């Protein structure tokens, strides 16, 4: 190759390295925001990032199946369909959407293998044919990106109030993921589409299975299995309950900083409880409420109304409130029922109901809690 001498030195500053640095910075900010309540998710994201680095350091060959153009094109079609489907996701994701994103991540992983990651490889690692193919693919990808993103953005922003509202939603929802997919994987998709069938083993010498390659495969397997394990523990793990009560709680809103009794001249009880479900990704359902009684009836003061029934932190699960109901019976007994359904993010058919119950008689006897 004529230009091999010019290529022998790898430049320190490349556009790929600047991109990687910016991604690392933004992900760092994002991950730090994740850290306080979502420890398991933070750990998992770090694992995914390390896995990406390890996987990218291992040379790959497409293998028999992914070497076939028809299979690669099928993969591109699947990725394109998921990318299009993401456009319909609003700013708030629902339980059925995460498995699709998971499948997209796996498809992108397969795409890297199918194209030998030449779309993002260092120039020193490519031969002339690969470099030419890559440049051509980028030109096609650029045209697709400019039309599909630039034009849509411009038209949606200025066309009508409705299109403007769609864009506001889109920029925080699935369409933003579609955009990132195109921005980082479109050239590889084009390469997978236009590259001819692999016809000779000379072009693809068998790679040695190094220990790094085995590590990479193991890490990918862990990245795939871990969320499934988290999902299964939602039903397999016992519910861990912590609860306490405080008699005649003091309200901090008193005059001159002196607290006053929440229930005034009546008696009261503060109920604090939390139920945790799952291992790894833990979902918490909390309850904080005050109820009072006066000998003839028990009644809720706060924390037992529909606006109070909010799940706490949920990792790898969606929470939806099924029941949030309080009533005082004819015998003066207060009954409060708060039922939440936790549904696994990646396996939405796995769900578990968590119930909190408070039963307080008119004379202050706690019959059931939590």
């Amino acid at each position, binding site marked *: 190759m004529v*230009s091999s001498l*010019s290529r022998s030195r790898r430049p320190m500053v490349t*556009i790929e390295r600047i*991109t990687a640095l910016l991604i690392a910075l933004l992900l760092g900010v994002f991950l730090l925001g994740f850290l306080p309540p979502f420890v398991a998710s933070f750990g998992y994201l770090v694992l995914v990032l390390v896995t990406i680095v390890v996987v990218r350091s291992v040379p790959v060959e497409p293998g028999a199946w992914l070497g076939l153009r028809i299979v690669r094109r099928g993969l591109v079609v699947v990725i394109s369909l998921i990318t299009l489907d993401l456009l319909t996701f609003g700013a708030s994701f629902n339980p059925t959407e995460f498995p699709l994103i998971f499948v997209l991540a796996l498809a992108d992983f397969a795409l890297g293998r199918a194209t030998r990651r030449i779309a993002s490889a260092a120039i020193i690692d490519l031969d002339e044919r690969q470099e030419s193919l890559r*440049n051509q693919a980028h030109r096609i990808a*650029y045209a697709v990106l400019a039309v599909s993103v630039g034009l849509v953005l411009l038209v949606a*922003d200025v066309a009508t*109030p409705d299109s*403007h509202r769609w864009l506001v939603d*889109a920029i925080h929802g699935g369409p933003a993921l579609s955009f990132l997919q195109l921005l980082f994987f479109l050239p590889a998709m084009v390469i997978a589409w236009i590259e001819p069938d692999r016809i000779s083993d000379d072009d693809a010498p068998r790679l040695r299975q190094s220990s790094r390659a085995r590590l990479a495969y193991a890490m990918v397997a862990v990245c795939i299995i871990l969320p499934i394990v988290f999902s299964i523990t939602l039903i397999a793990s016992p519910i861990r309950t912590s609860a306490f009560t405080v008699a005649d709680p003091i309200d901090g809103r008193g005059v001159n900083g002196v607290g006053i009794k929440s229930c005034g001249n009546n008696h009261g009880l503060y109920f604090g409880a939390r139920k945790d479900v799952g291992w790894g990704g833990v979902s918490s359902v909390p309850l904080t409420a005050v109820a009072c009684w006066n000998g003839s009836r028990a009644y809720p003061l706060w924390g037992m109304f529909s606006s109070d029934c909010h799940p706490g932190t949920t990792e790898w699960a969606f929470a939806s409130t099924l029941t949030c109901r309080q009533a005082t019976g004819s015998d003066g007994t207060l009954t409060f029922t708060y039922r939440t359904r936790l549904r696994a993010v990646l396996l939405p058919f796995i769900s578990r109901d968590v119930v909190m119950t408070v039963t307080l008689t008119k004379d202050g006897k706690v019959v059931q809690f939590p």
Partner: protein
Amino acid sequence: MTVQPEVLQTTSRRWSTVRISVLLLAACWLLLASSLPASLHGAGIVLVLALVVLDLALGVTTNWLAFLPTSRLDERQAALRNRAYRVAFRLVAVGVLLMVAFTIVGAIAAGDNLQSINAVPDAISPRHLVAFLELLVIGPTAVIAWLQDDASGSEPRGLQHWWSLLLVPLFAGAWLVAGQVLPAQTVTTRGSSGLFEAYGATCDHFATEKSIAGGLAGSARLKVEVCWDGRHAFAFGDPSLHTPMDIVPIPVPASELAAPLSMPSEPDLTSCAPRDPDSDFVNVSETCTEQIGPDGSMHLTAHARMSPLSGDLGSRDIEIQLVVSRDGKILAEG
């Protein structure tokens, strides 16, 4: 393939006029794409015109290679063009990531700025939209200009090649005309606050934005927390609106108050001021007036003046109206 050494050879480190133009382009783009300063105070259009001049200059210098069909290119040009598209694709990724980073930095820098809270949400500011489109349109040409340099591809061009620069005043004229004739687009939202409660009254949040040419010729906006108690509707949270305090319900008789009741300033709830990005391309000044009708309805009117040039030359007035009845019905909006 024998073109590669030539292509690589062209990436010399000489600081030619072309490369200086590319650097100028990058500097203008960075200023446009960054969120600092928070507002360009009408200078955004100057930046855009500078970008257009540089775009055209680079286009002429590169003979618009990036946009020519492959059939009109020789092998060397096609290789250079494809390589430029690869670099430009990465530049778009870097540019988008930079814009996200700038947005985060801008949000942190404007930490106590309450203009955006509860206002009509914007997907992307006009300034960032222009920066993104600029990146998409001229990225490959800028890369070709940088790679080509003056060693092989940018021989001096005759005056006949520069006629396209006439497009710059045409572009400026089109922008001025668009600012005058295009209808204002209205976006309204209601109830986005939801957290505010007032004694003895029901409250809801209203926000309206009127923009011309997607905000490229300015935007006016209004956000207000309106309360009503069956007798009157009134705006809450802006003392400059001079809401009569005797119509605001209070828990004790006014005579028992230690000090006369005054309207608090809650700029996160009620504000007539334009947001910083609204004044990027034109200067926007805005005033609001409130009147309580004899039937208890609230009439709120925002007057905005968009001035693309200094001295109110070519300025355009826009009005936003909101009328809410004493029982919370919207009688007029927009």
